[in-house]
């Protein structure tokens, strides 16, 4: 019952030097405002973040683990997709 009143939310934090929000965990909250506050309290206690996203867990569409082989196995033999077959000119610097 209480779990229906406080649905599950997924929390994403953008760190000080990070460009993208990263998934850090989940929490229960009554609505979006309370979820943001709880995310601040639970996941940014050590100065981790500059920005928070919260997303209802029900809004996430996940791939089926059963499809794992079909989805991911074919890439295993395509090593040429890794950018490791050419030299980076020195003038380019750190990429």
């Amino acid at each position, binding site marked *: 019952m209480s779990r229906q009143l*406080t649905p599950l939310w997924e929390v994403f934090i953008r760190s000080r030097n990070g460009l993208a929000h990263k998934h850090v965990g989940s*929490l*229960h*909250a*009554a*609505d979006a*405002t*309370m979820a943001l*506050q*709880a995310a601040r*309290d*639970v996941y940014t*206690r050590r100065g981790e973040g500059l920005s928070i996203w919260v997303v209802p867990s029900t809004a996430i569409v996940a791939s089926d683990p059963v499809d794992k082989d079909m989805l991911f196995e074919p890439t295993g033999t395509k090593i040429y997709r890794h950018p490791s077959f050419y030299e980076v000119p020195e003038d380019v610097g750190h990429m």
Partner: protein
Amino acid sequence: MATTSVAVLETPLVLGLLRRADDALVLAHRLSEWCGHAPVLEEDIALPNIALDLLGTARALYEYAAEVEAGAHVPPRAPVLDEDALAFLRDDRQYRNALITERPNGDFAHTIARQFLFSALADPAWRALMQSADARLAAIAAKAEKESAYHLRHSAEWLIRLGDGTELSHARAQAAVDALWPYTGEMFEADDAERALIDTGITPDPAGLRPVFDRTVDSVFAEATLTRPADGWMHSGGRIGRHSEHLGPMLAEMQILPRTFPGATW
């Protein structure tokens, strides 16, 4: 328990600092009592977070109070007191906190209502103190204000959801507000000592903060569908050390270790 309490020379500034520090420490201790007992994990972390904010503010104020107290002696003496002595070696009659801060936690609605009513004044008070003629106090206020703004937002959002929630949560929130309202008057008191600080621009006149407090309370209560209690008889006495029966047991638990083993470290 052989350790005796310390004597404190309470000049207006020392008293003004102790009153604010004691507010913060006593409320911090009450909130810390929720640690491990809160209804959900999220609040089990959120309430001690607020407690730690308040504890930090109390430490800064005690440290400053100890320095001011030392300088007030004739001739001035090196600080004998420190933050630990002021927190652990004063008994309940020497504590200067407003009575609302020592109210027992009660149910979750009581804890939230207590935090909301306290923060609704504490937040504008810290904001005003950022303009204090006392630079050290202004610096402490600048840090405390960011924290109190969050305490106010957190407790207000909860109060709105409790008041405008289920029939049961509404009843409990209204009962909490009704029970705590008679403790709000004391927060606006200004005796001669406080008046001396107001007249020298060190602290703001609490009467001037009343409209801000009223606006906050009225708008949150309206959204929470709670009825604002009438301003009737108000409790008083905490600022001069006359406390309820609840402070003594709290201090006993808080102080037993440093009083039993003076100077203990761990």
